[in-house]
């Protein structure tokens, strides 16, 4: 059984806020849902599925149902870090296709910038934590260790990583709601302080408030809605972890999910006009592109050079400015999906990718060098 072309994204709305001390995260969700429903030409009465993560701990999804006053027939609170929303869209598509619901809203809101939380010290009581928390792991450090190994094995340079940040800032300069819009240079990235070697401040995603919503329904239902449907062609998800001590750190979840998503979608790398790649850190983009098979392992450094990833380059990525410059409220998956949808509908103005027909979305959640989740979707305007 295949999910190919059975479902579509019919509504997408990104909350323009990047700093919202006057709003709650739930309010940002409600405003985003309103925006996405309006985009689709649907109303609250049409929603019978809800997916979210990161709103509050534990059973926050029930609180969200309460806040929105909905009694859905499908609920998904898969919580696998910032990639969660990419998982949610795949699950929503499967649920719609299986008849568990008809119209599913995937939603997110966060006020992490205006009401900061501190994390990266203590840690939970999962079995793995006792072997890690005594040594001071941080999120940046976990990704930095992958970068360090990549540089050692393949001679990847700080300049090559920096070019990814420079490209994201260029894209942000064309996005009126991006948080940081002043262009930067490779020298600026290298001159910013080292947070966790070899990653500099400007190799790291920003912290913003934000939110958004995506509406998923059947291909049939999508036909007579307000906007041109964006079809889901293929999806895959998995996790990578310490592998009982035997992990190959440069193989990420994208290795497995990319291959499977391409197979399921029946498209190849050449067909991809836009890739939305979770840029928690510059290294995340580089190793994800390798693992997805856009270039060979070890060749990511050269691959990202020379403007290839620009909106007008051979493989445009993160045309909204990414988590590095536009929006990263702790979790970014939602914004990958919204920008892909808008690009496939040719709604992106000066940063529009020409003839954007097929987009790949890849989310990485968690800590790359310890445990991370990954999901890949292939979306198409036809």
């Amino acid at each position, binding site marked *: 059984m295949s999910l190919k072309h059975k479902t579509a994204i019919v509504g997408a709305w990104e909350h323009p806020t990047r700093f919202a001390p006057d709003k709650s995260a739930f309010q940002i969700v409600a405003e985003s849902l309103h925006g996405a429903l309006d985009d689709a030409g649907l109303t609250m009465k049409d929603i019978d599925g809800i997916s979210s993560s990161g709103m509050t701990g534990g059973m926050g999804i029930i609180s969200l149902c309460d806040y929105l006053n909905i009694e859905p027939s499908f609920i998904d609170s898969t919580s696998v870090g910032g990639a969660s929303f990419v998982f949610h869209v795949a699950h929503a598509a499967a649920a719609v296709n299986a008849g568990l619901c008809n119209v599913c809203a995937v939603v997110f809101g966060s006020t992490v910038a205006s009401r900061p939380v501190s994390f990266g*010290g203590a840690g939970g009581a999962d079995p793995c934590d006792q072997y890690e928390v005594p040594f001071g792991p941080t999120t940046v450090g976990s990704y930095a260790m992958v970068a360090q190994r990549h540089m050692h094995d393949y001679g990847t340079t700080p300049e090559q990583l920096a070019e990814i940040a420079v490209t994201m800032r260029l894209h942000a300069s064309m996005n009126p709601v991006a948080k940081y819009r002043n262009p930067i240079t490779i020298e600026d990235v290298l001159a910013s302080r080292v947070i966790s070697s070899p990653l500099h401040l400007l190799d790291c995603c920003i912290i913003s408030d934000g939110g958004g919503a995506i509406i998923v329904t059947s291909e049939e239902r999508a036909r007579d809605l307000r906007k041109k449907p964006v079809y889901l062609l293929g999806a895959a998800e998995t996790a990578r972890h310490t592998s009982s001590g035997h992990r190959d750190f440069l193989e990420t979840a994208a290795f497995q999910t990319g291959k499977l998503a391409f197979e399921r979608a029946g498209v190849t790398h050449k067909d991809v006009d836009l890739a939305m790649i979770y840029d928690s850190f510059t290294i995340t983009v580089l190793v994800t592109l390798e693992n997805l098979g856009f270039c060979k392992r070890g060749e990511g450094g050269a691959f990202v050079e020379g403007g290839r990833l620009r909106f007008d380059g051979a493989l445009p990525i993160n045309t909204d400015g990414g988590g590095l410059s536009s929006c990263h409220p702790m979790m970014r998956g939602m914004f990958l999906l919204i920008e892909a949808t808008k690009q496939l509908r040719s709604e992106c103005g000066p940063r529009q990718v020409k003839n954007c027909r097929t987009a790949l979305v890849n989310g990485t959640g968690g800590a790359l060098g310890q445990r991370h989740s990954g999901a890949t979707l292939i979306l198409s305007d036809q």
Partner: protein
Amino acid sequence: MADAPKKYSKPLPPIDEESRPYWEALQRHELYIQKCRDCGELRYHPRAQCTACLSPRTEWVRCSGRGKVYTFTITNQNNAAGFRESLPYVMAYVQLDEGVKMLTNLVDCAPEQVKIEMPVEVVYEDVTPEVTLAKFRPAR
């Protein structure tokens, strides 16, 4: 009058019944990993059954305590208690001679001297009366 002993403020490992032998061995300054008695698979982190075949028949294998730096990062920013006072510190994965990779800190070495593939050896840090951590230093 002697200075009051400094309180250890970094997080302590939430030790459980599955892992207790590992931590008790560290208290004796011995480093152990596990091996499946049925399929021979080595594993770290410790757990009650083999991750290859789920056999509960487990052998504890004493390690040489020697290995090489697989990867590392010099941490310059961490606001968590205990670590903010220790900046910069080196977090690393060490690949033991026995094969498994272990998250740890590299100590007794200037951070800028650390290199991938550098030979290292275990050093036992008794951080509280109940907890000893396995850290690594350049091999002597």
